[in-house]
């Protein structure tokens, strides 16, 4: 019994181990079933952990002893190998009763703390396979076939409950956070920190003391989560660190009903600076993603609904290069009734309805939410035929331009030449030929912002709000005009988009 030999290698704990080993022998002779299982056991404590144990036992070891130890360890490793070799049959026997004399090898569907959770064998240390699911439980790791199996089983359950999967980003989507040290003086004067200390159950601004941060929930977020939870199984997926994600999850979901073990943070990502659906136990065909950054979802753009960034704090505006007063500084906020979250909730409801209602005639499992998102998006500018005028650089192919693609995704038809079927001319300048043609032929003449606005609001915007500004009012006037117009016509939501756009014009 290798345990009994162990003391020789560790002089410092000799007496204890001898007693222990003697006890074990006695115990093991009593337990007949355990006898066969035991030889494999010492191997489960890998040499590395053994080593640690020994070092702990003897804080002060002279060098000679270390050498001896090493020798002993090598010997022991060899013994273990033999043990393992011999233990193959008893191991099989030990798992036999449950698996009914299983001849083929265990496929090792996944691991918990380095042990296969089907047969209990330790994981092969060189060949670490599968994906870590640390956000569900520490030390849990699943193989790809097991993930597929779980997704398949899960899909059936979800569809039976008429639910889809929704993945939510935190920063700039559901919340906006700032470090306490980054709070601007204007924000301080307005007493933003005292607002966070108030004991009001409906407040939307919180201090995270442990992280020295201030967090503002996006207006409508509580209602959004409540309604979305009826249609979706929800995950939080953030690039922030785990402690932060958990704190925010507590704010959003104090009773832990929306996100039980569904909070994914940067430590769970399988690729650097990328988010992936591989760590989510939901099928890609039912996953909808809400995020403000398209870049991180390279592989899953079709699942993504891009959100307008929520900038509340001044530091957040600065970070994204807006040199204007933040919402916090001007004591404003997005409107609850038609802010970004309310808008997107309606879109989600629509996607959910189409997914489940049109599937009445077809098979639910063959539905793909990506197609549904596309269909819903295509309805936004349906029936519009656009011509762009001096929006793109001369040498670029218009079909490859972002704005052109966006318009097509929204269901508009884009064309390079004007004719009678054209409904809109998109221009930034009144002076172009096509712009003048539009005015002459009573066609809509709109700013490219109109397409962007439709893209974010999932609705065709009133064209009169997106006039092209006459050339004489250029520079400063243009900035002001653009801002004022959008502020009173489109609500607060548009402000930042417009600002961003204005910035782009000002500093090309």
């Amino acid at each position, binding site marked *: 019994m290798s345990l009994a030999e162990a003391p020789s290698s560790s002089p*410092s704990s000799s007496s204890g181990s001898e*007693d222990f080993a003697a006890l074990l022998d006695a115990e093991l002779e009593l337990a007949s079933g355990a006898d*066969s299982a035991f030889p494999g056991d010492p191997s489960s404590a890998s040499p590395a952990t053994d080593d*640690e144990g020994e070092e702990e036992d003897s804080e002060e070891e002279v060098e000679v002893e270390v050498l001896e130890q090493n020798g002993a360890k090598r010997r022991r490793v060899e013994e273990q190998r033999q043990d393992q070799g011999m233990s193959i049959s008893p191991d099989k026997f030990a798992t036999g009763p449950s698996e009914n004399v299983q001849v083929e090898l265990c496929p090792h569907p*996944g691991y918990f*703390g*380095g042990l296969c959770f089907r047969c209990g064998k330790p994981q092969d240390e060189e060949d670490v396979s599968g994906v870590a699911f640390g956000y569900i439980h520490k030390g849990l790791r699943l193989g790809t076939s097991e993930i597929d199996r779980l997704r398949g089983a899960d899909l059936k359950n979800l569809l039976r409950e008429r639910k889809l999967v929704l993945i939510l980003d935190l920063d700039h989507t559901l919340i906006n956070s700032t470090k306490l040290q980054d709070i601007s003086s204007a924000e301080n004067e307005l007493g933003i920190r005292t607002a966070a200390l108030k004991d009001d159950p409906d407040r939307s601004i919180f201090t995270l003391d442990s992280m020295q941060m201030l967090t503002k929930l996006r207006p409508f977020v509580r209602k959004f989560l409540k309604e979305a939870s009826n249609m979706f199984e929800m995950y939080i997926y953030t690039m922030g660190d785990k402690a932060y994600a958990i704190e925010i999850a507590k704010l959003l979901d104090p009773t832990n009903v929306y996100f039980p073990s569904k909070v994914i943070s940067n430590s769970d990502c399988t690729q650097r600076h990328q988010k992936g659906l591989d760590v989510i136990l939901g099928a890609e065909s039912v996953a909808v993603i809400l995020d403000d950054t398209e870049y991180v979802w390279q592989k899953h753009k079709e699942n993504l609904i891009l959100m307008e960034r929520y900038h509340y704090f001044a530091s957040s505006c600065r970070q994204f290069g807006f040199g204007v007063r933040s919402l916090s500084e001007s004591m404003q906020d997005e409107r609850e009734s038609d802010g970004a979250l309310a808008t997107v909730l309606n879109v989600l409801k629509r996607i959910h309805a189409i997914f489940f209602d049109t599937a009445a005639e077809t098979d639910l499992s063959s539905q793909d939410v990506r197609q549904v998102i596309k269909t819903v998006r295509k309805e936004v500018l349906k029936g519009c035929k656009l011509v762009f005028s001096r929006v793109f650089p001369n040498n670029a192919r218009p079909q490859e331009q972002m704005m052109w693609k966006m318009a097509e995704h929204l269901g508009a038809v884009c064309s390079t030449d004007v004719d009678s079927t054209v409904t809109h001319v998109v221009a930034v300048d009144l002076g172009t030929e096509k712009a003048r043609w539009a005015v002459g032929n009573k066609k809509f003449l709109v700013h490219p912002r109109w397409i962007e606005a439709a893209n974010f609001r999932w609705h065709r915007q009133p064209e009169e709000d997106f006039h092209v500004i006459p050339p004489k009012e250029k520079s400063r006037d243009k900035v002001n005009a653009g801002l004022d117009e959008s502020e009173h016509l489109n609500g607060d939501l548009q402000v930042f988009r417009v600002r961003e756009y204005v910035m782009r014009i000002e500093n090309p």
Partner: protein
Amino acid sequence: MFFHIVLERNMQLHPRHFGPHLRDKLVSKLIKDVEGTCSGRHGFVVAITGVEDIGKGLIREGTGYVTFPVKYQCVVFRPFKGEILEAVVTMVNKMGFFAEAGPVQIFVSNHLIPDDMEFQSGDVPNYTTSDGSVKIQKESEVRLKIIGTRVDATEIFCIGTIKDDFLGVISDPGAAV
């Protein structure tokens, strides 16, 4: 399985503690250092029950620290393969359920849950038999068999099964309601 054993440890003590309370200091440091730790061989040290012997201290040159070999009795807990344990369920999900027996984390995957028990999601996720007579959910107490263990410096991981005779729920928090 619990064991009451004698272990030995070399304790280093700062010279400022040399005085009338040296022994007390040594014992309290021992308790602080050892209780709650894991070692690969002995498992989890639950409690120190007594100090058998404190050997002669050896003064370290240069630092003035003194190293004492201390023999102490303690209760250790170490799970074994094939052992039957009772544990409290801490989390239930579609992969199986997690349970705790004191400091030991045990995972029972759905491969090792009887086939007639099915996962039910919802507010209280659980595994239930088709007739609804047996239910495993959070806070349930289960009797399970360990089929694999790993003990590292701070934690003990175990794989358990309830796919065997006389294993499964022993008390159901939902049943009382």
